[in-house]
């Protein structure tokens, strides 16, 4: 069950855009597809959606090879766009009908989702009169209106204000609860960390890292210590030849290459009766891992 991408490659002329990529999404949830600009994410997404033919490999959905004619996925592209001179309801209905919905059913769903995303007042307005954020919400509705099992969201939060980001976040969690499979591509690592159980990082068309996000993070040793104390501890840190990365008042972020040193610092502080408010060994964030894997 689910989506299976096996050894997929794609050339554009002599340029190899996607090189033997493989990953699987076996259960409902959000899967993170990461990569720098031009890494091959959009090409991979287009092949998953069946709008671009792969040169080799196999992509299956629930065991069946993905072809344009037999899929009905939802897609929110990174390139935002709706018909500027057409009323919102008319374009939502157009896309719903193209996805096989009947007018009555589509109208019901349009009303539900417009209400859910608080854009119902724009139903009979020309799209060009809407703000960028509201246009983005309309495009998001287009991608989920027909109740697809697999939804591809390319940078879903970019350009949204905090209120709308939160609204969209809730909707995505609601979709996961309903058993939807979601492929999310984003440069906002906090979003990926919040939603994704599994990820794949692509660089120059190749897979550089893939697997369960928590396991990936656990495989990295702690490289920073965050400590918050009631007294200045700069001297104690210097004594242990540790480097302060960031200091705000008596909150320190310290680089560590050995966890033992962090514990030694803690012992020293306790012995000196310095009260510790916070002591946290920090593993590399997804952002750090991403930069390490794809940064030149």
């Amino acid at each position, binding site marked *: 069950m689910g989506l299976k991408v096996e050894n997929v490659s794609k050339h554009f002329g002599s340029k190899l855009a996607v090189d033997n990529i493989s990953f699987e999404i076996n259960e409902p949830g959000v899967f993170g597809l990461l990569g720098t600009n031009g890494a091959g994410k959009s090409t991979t997404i287009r092949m998953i959606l069946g709008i671009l033919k792969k040169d080799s490999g196999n992509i299956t959905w629930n065991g069946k090879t993905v072809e344009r004619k037999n899929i009905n996925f939802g897609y929110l592209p990174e390139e935002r*766009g709706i*018909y500027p001179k057409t009323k919102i309801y008319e374009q939502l209905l157009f*896309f719903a009908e193209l996805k096989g919905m009947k007018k009555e059913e589509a109208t019901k769903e349009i009303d539900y989702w417009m209400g859910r995303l608080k854009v119902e007042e724009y139903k009979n307005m020309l799209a060009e009169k809407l703000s960028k954020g509201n246009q983005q919400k309309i495009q998001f509705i287009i991608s989920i209106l027909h109740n697809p099992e697999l939804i591809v969201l390319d940078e879903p939060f970019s350009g949204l204000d905090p209120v709308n980001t939160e609204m969209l976040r809730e909707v995505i969690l609601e979709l996961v609860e309903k058993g939807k499979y979601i492929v999310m591509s984003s440069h906002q690592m906090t979003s990926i960390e919040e939603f994704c159980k599994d990820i794949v990082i692509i660089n120059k068309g190749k897979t550089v890292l893939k697997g369960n996000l928590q396991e990936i993070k656990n495989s990295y040793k702690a490289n920073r210590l965050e400590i918050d104390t009631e007294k200045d501890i700069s001297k104690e840190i210097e004594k242990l030849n540790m480097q302060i990365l960031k200091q705000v008042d008596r909150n320190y972020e310290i680089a560590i290459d050995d966890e033992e040193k962090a514990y030694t610092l803690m012992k020293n502080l306790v012995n000196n009766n310095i009260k510790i408010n916070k002591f946290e060994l920090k593993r590399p964030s997804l952002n750090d891992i991403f930069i390490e894997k794809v940064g030149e």
Partner: protein
Amino acid sequence: MRDLFIVAKFTIKDMVKRKSFIISNLIILLFIVIGFNIPNIIKLFTNEDSSTAGTNMLIVDSENIFENTLTNLNEIDLGYNFTITNENLSFEDIKTKVENAEIDEAIIISNKDNQINIEYIVKNLTMIEAVPESIVNTLSSLYTNLQISKLGLTPEQIQSMSPNFTFEMKQTENQEVQGNPIAIMLISIVLFYAIYFCAYQVSSSITTEKTSKIIETLVTSTTPKTIVLGKTIGIGIVGIIQIVAIIATALISNALFLEEGILDGIIDFDNVTPFLGFITLIYFILGYAVYALLYALTGSTVSKPEDVQSANGPVAIIVIIGFYLSYFTMMNPTSELNQVAAILPISSPFCMPFRVMMGIATTSEILISIAVLAITIFIVAKISIKIYSQAILNYGSKISLKDALQMYKNKNV
């Protein structure tokens, strides 16, 4: 098939609901109504007929040169109300009569040194290049008859002196041409503009979808083939509706506002048959399909609206070559070149309806021409859809001809 219908329906609704579309079409229809009312408008301002019917003409023959035979003028329908006088009226007297609207025009006949002098007096000579031919001929004829009658000839002798010619025209070619070529050429020009502008709409619609990035969503909702064909059908239907509205407005305006028979000299309505209407419709559809599909191809190769013109350039050149090939050979409709123009797919949509209306197109010519167009549409559609499928998701710079050819050769699409 369902998707094709949905795309076509959306395209039609999207086009006809736009304010710019409604306003521009209303203006065209309004101009047609105004155009058919021009004679009435002129009448309104001049407060008289544009023809000479009812023009009051005073003929002054103070020396009675015509020996009272001028009274016969009112028996001849020349479009004037003649008043004949033998009074000795000067130019100033006539001028006063014209200014007082007693008469519209006058003729003063006098004899100077055995030379008969005829002065034609009107209020204003602007737009009048010469004395009306009908008056010159009639007066000459009356005077000649008067002089002959004085020779004492028998009626038979007089009869034998009058010309009794019958003029006939014949041609050496077998094909006979009917109708007024100028009027029919006008129909070809209208057909050219209808095909050109409707087909151009396809290109502009495709570029709009690409520049607004809606194509990303659209192409995951249905196939590129459905998008291109649905759009082409939708815009074509709107084009047909526009043409029907224009023709209907023209016919209704003709019936309501124009005097009966006023267009008879321009269009021979006997040639305007349902068959001609059917053929014109068929050629509009086929010609539009060829050019719309070519425009779909060029429209998909650009990402910025400012590049549309240059990308469409090659297709515009083909349309213009096709039209002029048809237009110039219409001057000699029985020429072989006109026959070729009626078969070539780039010119046949403009040329064949002309040949049908002229009554020189054979059934086999029509069938061959339609077959050639159908095959062309199939080939162009295949090429356009294949290139369109790849070009629409390419947001870089304008796609060159070389890139487009490579896209066509790409088997993995």
